[in-house]
Structure formats: C-alpha cells, structure tokens
C-alpha cells in the first residue's frame, strides 16, 4: 500500500490528484461509489465533466450521510480544489498571476482547473471556518430565569444551613469555626460550593470502573447512606455504553497489535526509564517516538513529556518570561493557564474564538506596550487550543494565521483533543483545514486522547526544540516517559499512518468522523441545544439547570449509558452541560440505542429547548 503510506507522510503537503490523469487515487472524493478500487479513476475522469458548480448546501442534512457512504468528513476535501503545494508544482505549471491575493502561499492553484473549479476553490479558500461553525444557541428566557432562581434558592438554603448549623450543631461545624482559640481549618466561604452544591450530587462523578473502558465500560455500583459523605459498593457491575472516555480512535484496547507490542517492550526495556531525560533516562525508543511524531505532525522535531498537563505547564515557562505577553483564549485549559502564570509573563484574554476581539486586543497591547514602562513587548505569543473540549468548537485557524501575518506574533496551538481526531489523516487541526503546519510555530498535543497512551509532545522547529530540551522543566526534573507507554504511542501512530499495511487506521479515522457527524446531527434534530462545530467528536448537550445535571447523569446511568456532566465552575453558571465523547469504537447501533435513551431522558427532563426550525 505504498500509495497510502506516501499520502500519509505529512498531512499539509498532500497532493490532490489532477482531474484527467492519476495513478494515485484519493478515496475522499465526493462520489456515489462504495468501493475503494481503481474504478474511481474512471469515475474521477468522468466527474470533471459534471463537477459541482453549485455551492454546498449550508445546513447539514442526514440524507447526505445516508446516501453516500464515502462522504468526505472534512470540508477541505469536499471540494476537489486541485490544490498543490508550491514546492511540488513543476515549474512549467506555475501560473503567472494568482487569483488569490491574500493567502497565496498557503493554498496554491494549479493551472489546469476549469473556471468553475477555480471559483469554487477560491470560494472554498475564503469561507473556511464559517462552514463548520455552529453558532452557540441561546436558550429561551424561561429556562434562563429558572436557572438563576434555582441557583439563588440553592445558595440561600446553603447559607442558611451554614448559619444555623454553626449555632446548633457546633461539633459538626467545628472545622469551619474558630475553635478554642484556633482559626477555622477551612474557610467556610471558599469551600461553600464544594460543601453545599458539589457534595449533594457527588455521586455523578468519580464513579469507580473496572476493566478497560472501551465502547462498553463496567461501572461499579455504589450507594450512600449519609447523603454522599461516604459511599459503599454494592458489588453489582453496570455495563454502560461509554461516552465518558476520550477514546476517539478506539485505541483503548487490551488486545490487539498495540497491546502485543507493549508487552514485548516491557520484556525488553522494563517499566521505567530510570532517570530524567537530561541525565541518563533518554532511551532510543524516545528518540524514535519523537522523530515519528514530528513527521506525523509536519514539523522538524518534537520532544515528548511524560505527562499531558505537564507538557503545557513546563514548556510555556521555558518559552516566555517576564517582559513577554501571552494572549490566551478565554476558555483555555487550566494547564495552559498554569504554565502561563508560572512563566511570569503578562497575560491577556480574548473572547472565545472571536477573531474580531483578538484583533482589537492586539491593536491595544501592541500600541500600549509593557505595563507602566510602555516599552515594546519582548515576545507576544498567542495560545489557543485546536479543539475545545467543553464547547466542541474548533479554532478559527485561517483567520488566526491571517492575523499572524499581519501582527507578527508567535502561535502555540494545543492540539490535545484534535490530534488524531480531526483531519483526514488524523493530523489535527492543520490537517482539518488543509493548512501547512509551518504556519504554526509550536504544535503541542497529548497522547492521552486519541493514541490510548499518556503524556504529550511539543513539535516545532529544530532550533526551538533543542532549546526546550535544555530548558523545559520536565526534561530537567521529571522522569521520562515509560517504555511501555512510549511503545503504545509508536504502535498506535503506526496504525494511524497505515504503516502496518492495513486500512485499520483509515477506518478508525473515518468511523470517528461519521460517528461524530451523525451523533451531533441527530441530537440537533431531536431538539436539543448542542454546542460544537460540525465534525467535532466532542458533543456537549446543554442542560442549563443545576438540578438537571444530577438528574441527567443518574437517569442515564439507570439506562446504561455513561456520560460526563459538567457544571459551574468549570463552565459558565447558566450553561451546564452533558458531554458526549464519540469514539471510533462505537458502532451505529450503539449510537442509535444511546440516542433513543437520550431522547427518553430529554423528554422526561424537558431538555428539548431548540426553537422549531
């Protein structure tokens, strides 16, 4: 399968077949054909005569999924735009003038496209993020008012109970009051939320499971006799369809080629590297993994850190310091915020995925300079995530790169959720948009989600990575990634790139995209308010009311579906949500079954707020 390996090398520099002749077929053409054989060649040839001159329908319709089994899951391939990377175009074919004035080295037009195709691809190049974007819907006013009143009543009663409890049940509240001259152990207001709100519904989180959490996970049932202060296992196991694990490509398996490779590695290398990377803990397996990851992502070099959170929190201080500016998205993960605060740089925040707000902010900070001295900033770095796990929104990368060219800042993209899950070859958010990864300075990702391993990586230019190898806190102080986990990374990466010679990786990626589209579309069709852009494997379903958080979680557990519910303070106060993480391991039957149950619970809890279309 030389062709597939070739096409999987670097996602951004992919050759799309020219219309007339090709020995390399690309399966993601928009055809009615089911099979992946060379019959598509003739179909490719004949399709140019009937190339779509109409623009793609804006609304997502289910029939388009059901009719064509080979539907493209990334819009960049939905138009066969015949884009060729500049370095790969033979000199004779380079056009003299470019139809695209702004982004002429991001996307490149071959000479032999028809005018209709060129119009289409120009249009495609211009309307990138807006195609997938689903605007966050507002709930009807009644729901919002009831949510505020709900919180108001909860807080009022919580405070009342605290006040009366401190008077009448002094022994139980001893840790919150001054006691024989000692200050209170815990500030009662700081812990108010934990004691009065989280404690009541604590059984919805941290549920103990047993076995490998693949598409079905076995939850150990537990009951509480004292209002969730303590739990007691009943001994019963609940088999639930697993929407709570970040198992995007289904690599959380106890059997299979990855597990076999890992077993061998334990025999060869043992279970620990034994030291830090900077001292004597670097093994050849680490270098191999770093090289492979760098090639996969499309950068020169990479470095691997043993913990996903620590990848951000130890790298950002090594990149920026005092006198620099970090601009981070409003809803960035706490690891990024941790690293940013640790670094000592100034931090500013812009509205989530809002490029207009970012532009205004950039104008303000660049014109003002450092606080008090107004000197120019040493460095401005913008940190965004590829896929935000709470909203399911994809970063607006094309606009961001346009801004980067204009304002000349550094860009750091955290692809924790998007690597492996987005893009035609699983190459992340750059692959998803068809943008060359050279435009992003630092690509960070984690292996926890799509690879079934642990830890994270930083990929960038060799110069930057060499500097990081010396200065990164985890390289100096933290233990190395253990050999079995590194082997899992290598094995799953190999499967994703098709190096084992099978279509396993391709199938997984395709299955995930199909599942993600299907699930989100069906939920929207049922009338739920669902955030998340088209194609995102994270599907948040809005609950709004705090009482519905626990009700939804418990009802779904009763019916055998395991989900994650999130509320305040991880999300804004009114938009608590249930988060479904669709996986390639889920079959269509699983999804249908789960959707039926979700609909049931949605009717029971009155969750179908969407205004009738």
């Amino acid at each position: 399968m030389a062709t597939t390996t070739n096409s999987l090398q670097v996602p951004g520099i992919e050759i799309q077949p020219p219309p007339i002749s090709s020995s390399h077929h690309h399966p993601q053409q928009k055809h009615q054909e089911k099979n992946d054989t060379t019959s598509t060649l003739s179909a490719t040839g004949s399709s140019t005569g009937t190339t779509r001159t109409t623009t793609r329908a804006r609304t997502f319709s289910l029939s388009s999924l059901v009719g064509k089994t080979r539907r493209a899951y990334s819009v960049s391939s939905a138009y066969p735009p015949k884009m060729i990377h500049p370095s790969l175009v033979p000199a004779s074919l380079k056009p003299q003038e470019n139809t695209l004035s702004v982004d002429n080295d991001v996307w490149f037009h071959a000479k032999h496209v028809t005018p209709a195709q060129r119009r289409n691809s120009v249009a495609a190049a211009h309307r990138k993020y807006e195609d997938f974007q689903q605007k966050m819907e507002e709930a009807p006013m009644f729901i919002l008012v009831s949510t505020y009143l709900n919180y108001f009543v909860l807080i009022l009663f919580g405070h009342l109970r605290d006040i009366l409890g401190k008077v009448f049940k002094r022994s139980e509240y001893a840790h919150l009051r001054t006691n024989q001259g000692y200050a209170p152990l815990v500030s009662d207001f700081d812990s108010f939320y934990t004691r009065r709100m989280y404690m009541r519904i604590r059984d919805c989180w941290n549920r103990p499971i047993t076995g490998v959490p693949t598409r079905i996970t076995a939850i150990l049932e537990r009951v509480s006799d004292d209002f969730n202060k303590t739990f007691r296992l009943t001994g019963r196991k609940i088999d639930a369809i697993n929407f709570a694990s970040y198992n995007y490509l289904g690599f959380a398996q106890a059997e299979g080629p990855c597990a076999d490779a890992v077993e061998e590695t334990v025999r060869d290398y043992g279970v620990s590297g034994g030291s830090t990377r900077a001292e004597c803990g670097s093994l050849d397996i680490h270098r191999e993994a770093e090289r492979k990851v760098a090639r996969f992502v499309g950068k020169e070099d990479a470095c691997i850190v043993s913990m996903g959170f620590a990848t951000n929190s130890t790298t950002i201080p090594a990149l920026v310091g005092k006198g620099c500016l970090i601009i981070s998205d409003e809803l960035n993960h706490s690891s990024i915020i941790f690293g940013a605060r640790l670094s000592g740089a100034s931090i500013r925040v812009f509205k989530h995925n809002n490029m207009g707000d970012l532009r205004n902010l950039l104008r303000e900070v660049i014109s003002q300079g450092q606080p008090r001295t107004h000197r120019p900033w040493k460095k401005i770095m913008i940190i965004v995530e590829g896929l935000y796990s709470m909203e399911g929104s994809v970063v607006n990368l094309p606009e961001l790169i346009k801004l980067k060219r204009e304002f000349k800042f550094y860009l750091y993209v955290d692809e924790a959720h998007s690597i492996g899950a987005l893009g035609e070859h699983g190459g992340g958010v750059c692959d998803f948009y068809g943008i060359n990864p050279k435009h992003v300075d630092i690509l960070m990702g984690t292996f926890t989600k799509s690879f079934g391993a642990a830890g994270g990586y930083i990929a960038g230019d060799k110069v930057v990575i060499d500097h990081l190898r010396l200065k990164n806190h985890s390289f100096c102080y933290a233990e190395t990634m253990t050999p079995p986990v590194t082997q899992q990374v290598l094995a799953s990466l190999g499967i994703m790139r098709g190096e084992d010679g099978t279509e396993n990786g391709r199938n997984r990626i395709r299955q995930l995209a199909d599942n993600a589209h299907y699930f989100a579309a069906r939920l929207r069709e049922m009338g739920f308010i669902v955030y998340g852009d088209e194609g995102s494997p994270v599907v948040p379903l809005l609950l709004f009311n705090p009482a519905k958080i626990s009700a939804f979680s418990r009802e779904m557990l009763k019916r055998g579906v395991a989900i994650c519910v999130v509320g305040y303070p991880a999300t804004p106060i009114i938009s608590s949500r249930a988060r479904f993480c669709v996986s390639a391991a889920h079959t269509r039957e699983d999804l249908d079954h789960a959707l039926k149950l979700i609909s049931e619970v949605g009717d029971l809890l009155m969750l179908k707020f969407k205004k009738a279309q």
Partner: protein
Amino acid sequence: MSSIREQKAHQTLDQSSMPNFNSSWVNYKGAWFTTLFIIVLLKTLFSVIPFISSEASWTLTNLTFNVGQYIMFHWVQGIPFENHQGAYDGLTLWEQIDGGVQFTATRKFFTAVPIALFLLSTHYTHYNLVLLVINFAPLLWVLVAKLPVMHRVRVFGINKIDHVVD
C-alpha cells in the same frame, strides 16, 4: 513577595488569566430580567400577607431588596470555590464585576434598579415623611457602596480586606 507593587502585579496576573465565572453571570442573557423578576416576586409575596397595606408591602419590598442586594454584592467577599488561588480574596462581587472597570452597563443597571424601586415605593406610600426616611436610608446605604470612589475602600474597618503576607 517583596513589595506591595509586586503583590498587586501578581494579583492582576491571576485575575486576568481566566474569566471570573463568579461575577461574569451579571452580563449574561437573563440576569437583568431575573433581578426584576425577583422584585416582582417579593412584592407578590408581601402583598399576599393578609391585612397588609399597600404602603407597608412596598416599603418591605424596598427594604428586603436593598438588604439582600447589599449582602450579596457588597458584603460577601471572595469566590465560593477555590479556582483562582486567592486572586479575588477580599473583593466583593461588586468589585469583581467586569474586572473592576467602572461605569459599565451592568453597573449602571444595578445602580438604577434600587433607585427605580425607591421611586415606586415613595409613590405608593404617598410621600409620607416617616416612610420616606425608612425607604431612603437603605437606598443611600446601597448607593454609597456602589460609588466608584468606594472601590476597595473599607470604612471603619468593617469587612476589612486582609492583606496576604507571604
């Protein structure tokens, strides 16, 4: 922390690194409407009591609303969960709104609401002097607390901000 200036700089760092969900709800859709709705509810509650006069119910509504608003916005300090490593310690909700920026739309709204309620209650009490004084005192209290000059100011040591000593 070696100096007060560094202390303040670090607090700003912590405050600006992520949105403050404890205070950002006042800007969301439905928050203003809910405030007005609560006033309506309070009035209904007080009118339902048998043998109560309209003056008394309006006065009670005004009083309860102002007292409740004072406790919620100007008395309680900090945030009720441990997310920001003490960035908002000692700041009341009023001081946290919009990151301390004065004269925003939300602040104007929440200043206008007790004034409007006061005007309504004086109308319904037929401008009786005693009731006027009873209505005016809490209004004055709340309005003084909302003045920009009172940002982070604590009078007579009431509700003092403790400075973190490192």
